[in-house]
């Protein structure tokens, strides 16, 4: 046996000894909870969601705790849910997208007006709408990654530009449900539903869930997903590690724009009409950011699970439905959601201490 080999014996002899390893030094329940939350950022919103459903179920009984009502909540959050998926991607790169709702409304108008004003087949209009969504995302992405304008400013501007374009292009015409049903059933496709017992799952709801599952897989298990987290955590370090920051940012904004266009299709399905003055254009951005923040995704980027945003959207939906059913003044809903937002970020700060 040579000298060089013998040092390996140490490893063999001392297998009991731990080498480079993080020690969990925190003692007690609180420390363990903090650690668990750090590993599973979507755990907090899930617990809040389950508690809220349980509480409202106890107070309101069968009216609330029925398959019909619970799936109705899914239908009511489907638009905000899809927008929150787009918002999550952008926020994971430490950005923010104020234009998501406006892009969705513009895409509904494009899909509708191309069909009715220009006589384009509805299926093709859908693709044109998706292309517009992706295109707007590409412009924002370019301005953020190449021109180096802060995402807040880029999307604040884009929000206004897109909203104004919506009004100008649509001439403020609402396309009615009777026309859509007669001439463009493809636009209403996502409004169809599958009934299981008393539960109603619209295709829009199913699509929303598929989007979350697909993005969760992509973010967790593909190189692209890890690059998104890396860029959000520290773009310079990511660059040094060989990540193409520009390409990653572009892909994120294009993807976000595309998802907003999908939200547009979901929207037409849900409302069976196309209204350029839909309030999603004005408050959709805030609603999606709310879902993301309540979902425990860090606004500083690079941390959080996309399922958190899904749970966040559902929490808002459950609160709104529960309080409405109880006959409470709608202002209470906004008040409670405001408290949830601040609570969620306070919790995020506390969890972050685990890593420092």
């Amino acid at each position: 046996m040579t000298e060089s080999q013998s040092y390996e014996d140490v490893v063999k002899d001392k297998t009991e000894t731990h080498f480079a390893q993080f020690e969990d030094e925190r003692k007690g329940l609180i420390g363990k909870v903090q650690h668990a939350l750090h590993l599973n950022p979507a755990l907090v919103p899930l617990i809040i969601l389950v508690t809220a459903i349980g509480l409202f179920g106890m107070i309101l009984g069968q009216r609330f705790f029925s398959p019909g009502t619970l799936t109705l909540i899914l239908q009511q959050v489907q638009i905000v849910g899809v927008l929150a998926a787009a918002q999550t991607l952008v926020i994971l790169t430490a950005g923010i997208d104020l234009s998501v709702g406006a892009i969705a409304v513009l895409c509904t108008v494009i899909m509708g007006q191309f069909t009715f004003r220009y006589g384009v087949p509805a299926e093709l209009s859908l693709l044109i709408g998706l292309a517009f969504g992706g295109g707007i995302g590409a412009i924002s992405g370019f301005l953020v990654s190449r021109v180096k304008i802060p995402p807040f400013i880029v999307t604040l501007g884009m929000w206004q530009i897109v909203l104004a374009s919506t009004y100008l292009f649509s001439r403020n015409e609402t396309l009615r449900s009777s026309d859509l049903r007669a001439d463009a059933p493809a636009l209403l496709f996502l409004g169809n539903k599958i009934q299981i017992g008393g539960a109603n799952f619209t295709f829009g709801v199913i699509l929303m869930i598929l989007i979350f599952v697909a993005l969760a897989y992509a973010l967790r298990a593909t190189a692209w997903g890890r690059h998104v987290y890396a860029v959000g955590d520290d773009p310079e370090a990511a660059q040094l590690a060989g990540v193409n920051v520009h390409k990653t940012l572009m892909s994120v904004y294009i993807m976000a724009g595309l998802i907003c266009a999908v939200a547009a299709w979901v929207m037409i399905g849900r409302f069976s009409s196309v209204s350029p003055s839909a309030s999603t254009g004005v408050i959709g951005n805030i609603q999606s950011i709310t879902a993301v923040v309540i979902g425990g995704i860090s606004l500083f980027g690079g941390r959080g699970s996309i399922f958190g945003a899904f749970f966040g959207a559902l929490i808002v939906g459950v609160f709104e439905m529960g309080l409405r059913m109880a006959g409470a003044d709608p202002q209470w809903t906004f008040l409670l959601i405001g408290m949830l937002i601040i609570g969620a970020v306070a919790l995020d700060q506390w969890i972050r201490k685990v890593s420092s």
Partner: protein
Amino acid sequence: MKKLLIGTALVTIATAGSALADDHATSACLITKTDTNPFFVKMREGAAAAAEAAGITLNSYAGQVDGDNEAQVAAIETCIANGASGILITASDTAAIVPSVEQAREAGLLVIALDTPLDPIDAADATFATDNFLAGELIGQWAAATLGDDAANAKIAMLDLAISQPTVGVLRDQGFLTGFGIDTVDVNRWGDETDERIICNEVTAGNEEGGRTAMENCLAVDPEINVVYTINEPAAAGAYEALAAIGREDDVLIVSVDGGCPGIQNVADGVIGATSQQYPLLMASLGIEAIVKYAADGTLPENTPGKNFLDTGVSLVTGQPADGVESIDVAEGTDRCWG
């Protein structure tokens, strides 16, 4: 996390499986555009009082901003899930809300449009409203009569509601022009008129801030404006501020629609020349009574003869009555005002 998910799913399925019909008493829903505008606050009070008198439950919902169709759709869905007997709604987007209203009617709920007719009007079971065209016509006639011969050279600012042209705004606007004696071209749209007496069409969102900005914009086009039509009294108050800022508050006629107490006070103070008063409390209380009747034996409410809705009445309130235009004085207006 998995355990929690599975657990929730199991509990949901278990409880849902044994779902029983709830035997709750008759209940009604009131869905307004917002819950900050005094018009809707008063409407809610009227509905709440009538509901209490009839011994039924009333749930009230509202959008977060004016024009918030999504919140109203969610509210209708809640009413259906809640097993309500009927819905009273002032729609934010009169065309876009129709599919949800159809859903509610299919589920056996009585849907009554309050104040704002749906598009088309027969999408609801009934409409309880002010004749908004008549309301506009009355202030138009009053303005023309007050100006006398000068009406031919009037310079008019039209301060409308919103660019989406909700029917209530269109009816008042076109009614005013008709009453004043101006060709409305297409009576279903404002802003397409060619009469040179109309200086501007601006939107106000129906509040003071919007009214002031809109008036400033109009004055920038022509500082000689001497007649101002406003969609409602808050917008009129805003317009007055803009006029006062350039010292022209005394030589301009401002007319409006609504009949809220602050608005009537403004008529008394000379801020507004004349206003058409409507009666939201009556709309709401009649609406609740109709729902109670419908829940009892399925009776549907009937329209005012000659109109395709139930007219809850309108009166012109002014301190300076004009010849040939019927009006009530400020004291009577104050007695019947709301908000």
